[in-house]
């Protein structure tokens, strides 16, 4: 089953490659060529981090204001983040300027390929060259094989890619380096020249490849890094103008690596920690903001007692252990909650609006989040919320009723799929709020108690009996 699937996929890739070769002629219209491309793929964690350096030359007549990137369909689904920057200057004095990257459609690209458009700072005049550095990350791109392992076996994974960089431009010279987490590489495809030295595989250099050239390669290697996947994370950020920011995070954690086959033996796990369950993980580190207070860590059946909090003036680190070590395919759910001083995160903008400045991503280090939902609960009575997020997210509004609410609190919901630690950047939520609303609930309570006493006094002083005593 597995083998046939693989064969199918390989066949599909070959056809794809063939098609892409056909497409070369049409893409010649692009009058840019890449003089030198270097690709470094880091596979040492569960996320494939790819660092691409392109030296671009404009061979056409007109100035080019943008450069296209393309990804094969297998990678396009796993693509978590693409960043580009322009490098200028030599060696040490290099300066980096971030560039704008936007997904786009290229009509003559092979079917399923996903393209991105990098807008250059200054249009590239004919004959000029420029260096662009691109960083992109792929999640779930390593497929465990064998898919099921026993407790004592190491975890082996496949990584698929192309020996040639898929590009809409002709590439004069290109090299690909693949860094594996250990020296244990079981097999790798050869597209000569191919070298292996220690933990590094080198494909290339390849000279003068036409546009959209593709040559699938497969690397089979050992990767025992924890494949901690948060399948779903809901972060709720609740703003209270009485001075507290309450964060509640609901996690559904899974081990995304090779599934555990058969037995889990505690004896082996405890007595031979190095040899047993190497791909499992038992603790995770959550990096929380400084000055965090009232931290809790629990699940639906109560407090989980195995956690440790370290705080200093610059950061807080919460080390958590799920109830049991996670082996391949095992799942766990838990909730982390904490409070933060509001003045660290809420500010007033120049136009009188308030804005929350908070980190977007998942605080657990080294994890991939398949679906992240950030809910910003604004205080009751706040108006016109709007979010500023540095990457595309889905947004909608909800209403939440909490302590003694009458009209409910507006909730701004931000959703994003495929989140990597790189997304732990700040985002802002702007809203306007009248401080009078802060007094609504205390006044309500006070008046309730007042009316209660008034009713008591009235009852005690009114004789409601029909017959006079």
């Amino acid at each position, binding site marked *: 089953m597995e083998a046939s699937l693989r064969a199918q996929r390989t066949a599909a890739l070959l056809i794809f490659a063939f098609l892409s070769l056909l497409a070369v002629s049409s893409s010649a219209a692009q009058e840019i060529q890449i003089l030198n491309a270097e690709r470094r793929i880091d596979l040492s964690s569960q996320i494939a981090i790819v660092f691409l350096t392109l030296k671009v030359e404009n061979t056409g007549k007109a100035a080019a204001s943008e450069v296209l990137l393309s990804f094969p369909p297998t990678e396009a689904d796993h693509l978590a983040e693409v960043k580009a920057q322009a490098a200028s200057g030599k060696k040490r004095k290099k300066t980096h300027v971030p560039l704008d990257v936007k997904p786009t459609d290229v009509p003559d690209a092979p079917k399923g390929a996903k393209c991105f458009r990098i807008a250059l700072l200054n249009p590239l005049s004919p004959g000029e060259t420029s260096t662009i550095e691109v960083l992109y990350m792929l999640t779930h791109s390593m497929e465990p094989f064998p898919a099921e392992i026993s407790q004592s076996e190491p975890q082996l994974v496949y990584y698929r890619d192309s020996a040639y960089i898929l590009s809409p431009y002709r590439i004069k010279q290109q090299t690909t380096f693949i860094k594996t987490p250990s020296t244990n590489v079981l097999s790798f495809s050869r597209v000569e020249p191919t070298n292996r030295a220690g933990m590094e595989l080198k494909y290339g250099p390849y000279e003068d490849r036409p546009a959209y050239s593709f040559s699938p390669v497969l690397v089979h290697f050992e990767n025992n890094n924890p494949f901690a996947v948060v399948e779903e994370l809901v972060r709720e950020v609740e703003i209270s103008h009485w001075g507290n920011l309450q964060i509640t995070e609901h996690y559904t954690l899974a081990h995304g690596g090779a599934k555990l086959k058969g037995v889990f033996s*505690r004896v082996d796990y405890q007595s031979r920690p190095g040899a047993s369950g190497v791909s499992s993980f038992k603790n995770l580190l959550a990096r929380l903001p400084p000055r965090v207070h009232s931290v809790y860590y629990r699940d639906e059946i109560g407090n989980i007692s195995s956690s440790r909090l370290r705080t200093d003036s610059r950061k807080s680190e919460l080390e958590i252990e799920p109830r049991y070590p996670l082996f391949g395919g095992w799942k766990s759910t838990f909730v982390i909650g904490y409070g933060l001083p509001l003045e660290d995160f809420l500010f007033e903008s120049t136009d009188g609006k308030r804005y929350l400045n908070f980190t977007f991503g998942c605080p657990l280090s080294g994890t991939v989040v398949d679906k992240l939902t950030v809910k910003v609960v604004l205080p009751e009575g706040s108006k016109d919320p709007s979010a500023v997020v540095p990457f595309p997210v889905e947004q909608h509004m909800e209403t939440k009723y909490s302590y003694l609410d009458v009209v409910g609190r507006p909730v701004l919901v931000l959703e994003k799929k495929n989140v990597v630690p790189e997304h732990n950047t700040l985002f802002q939520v702007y809203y306007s709020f009248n401080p009078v609303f802060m007094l609504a609930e205390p006044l309500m309570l006070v008046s309730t108690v007042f009316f209660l006493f008034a009713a008591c006094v009235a009852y005690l002083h009114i004789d409601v009996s029909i017959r006079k005593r």
Partner: protein
Amino acid sequence: MASPESTINGPTKADSKSLRNAFGGVIAFIILVLIGVLAFSIRLFSVIKYESVIHEFDPYFNYRVTQFLSKNGIYDFWNWFDDRTWYPLGRVIGGTVYPGLTLTAGTIWKVVNSLNIPLSVETVCVFTAPIFSAFASWAAYLLTKEVKGPGAGLTAAALLAMVPSYISRSVAGSYDNEAVAIFALVFTFYLYIKTLNTGSLFYATLNALAYFYMVCSWGGYTFIINLIPMHVLLCIVTGRYSSRLYIAYAPLVVLGTLLAALVPVVGFNAVLTSEHFASFLVFIIIHVVALAYYIKGILSPKMFKVAVTLVVSVGLAVCCAVIAILIAVVASSPTKGWSGRSLTLLDPTYASKYIPIIASVSEHQPPTWPSYFMDINVLAFLVPAGIIACFMPLSDSSSFVILYIVTSVYFSGVMVRLMLVLAPAACILSGIALSEAFNVLTRSIKFQLPGIAGNSTVASEESGSSSVVAPSDVSKTEKTEEVAKEKPVKKNRKKEKENVEKKPTPSKTERRLLVLPLEASVIAVLLLVLLGAFYVVHCVWAAAEAYSAPSIVLTSQSNDGGLHVFDDFREAYSWLSHNTDVDDKVASWWDYGYQTTAMANRTVLVDNNTWNNTHIATVGTAMSSPEKQAWEIFHSLDVKYVLVVFGGLVGYPSDDINKFLWMVRIGGGEFPHIKEPDYLRDGQYRIDAQATPTMLNCLMYKLSYFRFVETDGKGFDRVRRTEIGKKHFKLTHFEEVFTTHHWMVRIYKLKPPRNRIRGKTKKSKSSRSVSSKRDVKGKRNPWH
């Protein structure tokens, strides 16, 4: 009574008196609020020391039911057929559960959430018990106030707020029926006494409603429906029949029985079972008596005598016939119409003889003497004094309290858990005793201190005369303080009660005689305060140390002073809930049934609602059978996982190996091939090298000790304090899938049935039988 007094006295005095009364009321109110706060907060030790979590076993079931109720609503709750327990039989939850507790918590949750206060169901469930214990102490105040006045009421409420016996069942998280039932019990009694004292039909109706709530809450309602008839009978026999008694009793029986029959779990049992017969019998008697009194009222004495002889002769015949029919009906049922638990109460040896499943529960054992001291502490010494105080004078209400304490002392002697019924009675009587003692002692001090503030001319007059009387009193009561305290109490009571009815002026002359010597009373007051202080210290200790552990989380002090947490149960349940299929069946001993369904959300074979003995016996048999037979039993029941609790590694004593003999006994009760002697060596239960081969080959032993020897090389069991008998063995039909961090819970998976290979069946069978024979030989050799 205050108003006629004030009219007699001058206007200034009346003002001061009413002002004092008002202040007294306010102070009593504040004290009651504080008592409520005390009752609530003393039960929070478990939340502070551990966490806000549901405790133990039964509360998990109630919690699960409450979750269902809050999610699906009341109608689905009544119709709930639970297919996640007692597989494959299932259980009709709506019809077999006392719904009072869950409905109460569900209502609280609903109200709180409709006010947009986002409390979780769990939080509400955790704090239901402390809230209701505050209510219970207020109910105790009301009841005692009806019997002996507000002073005794406040004392009783304060005592009940912190009585350890009640704390043990109502700490935060102990979400069990008893938590609300004790309030319902005391409140029902209060309304009964109130009706008895006032003769108001309004209170009689309320009483029936309170009884209804009690029926909803707890099976212990039979205590009410037997105790009240007993009291009515007592009143009739002692010639205390009155129309108030009739109003207190007749509506309760009629309305109460109708209402009780509305509760699905009771239903027609309210008229069919023997537990309720006493009430109907007394209902008939009270009508006969009422009729007799009525006829006596309208007939002349002569005519009445004639009528009596006529009625008695006819009535006797009819009664005999009715009783004969009743007895015949009752006798035709095997248990004489009594449920097993009730029979255990009437005959304490019944359960151990016939129903091992009731006897196996530790809380159904008779208590030991230390447990009385632990659970009601100094109240045990104050209760006799309270009983004496109740006899002076004996009123309808005080006779009820006496009857209550006497019966509950008996019941608590039969079962540990019924200590809970004793606790309110003990508190009420101790409250009466303490309050009366303080009353007498402080009065004697007051009358003998000449310069006391607030004592006007009257007091100074008194002091002169009292000093004359004092020496004589001293000579009389120069014994121990105890005697000195109690004897005058006995004398005083009767007179004082009369005093209340009389006008204040003549009473003063009599009061002068009731004075104790100053020194003795001061010392006695100090001693009583000391006693109270001791009680408080004990209660706080019991609440903090003895009764606050939630039992699903264990802690131990580690060497460096830190706290080591054993959270293995939840680790296992959490693993089950996340890493097994949602419809998998888990077999374990019934103790863990409720927890497995509530925390792991997996189907279980048996749980703590031990309604089907055969099913439990099946699991017991499987656990005590050799691996293959056990596998067959479990496989026939679709079981996928087997869960055992094992304390041998960390020394957790209440594990399955220690409970194992009960599994053998209960299994053997239904399946005679399991024989208890096979598991005992010379009558001793052991798991070391001296153990019998049956023991060493049974499933429970194997699942508990599988690969245990690899932990320390010897296989030393820290609970049994011995090395295990059989150290190296393999499992052929089960495989280990999960063991918790401290090995306290081990989960095994049944291996799938072996594929049948055509033509080879015969061979493999014969070879297997040979090997099994060899096995037996190999096993026997070392020990014979």
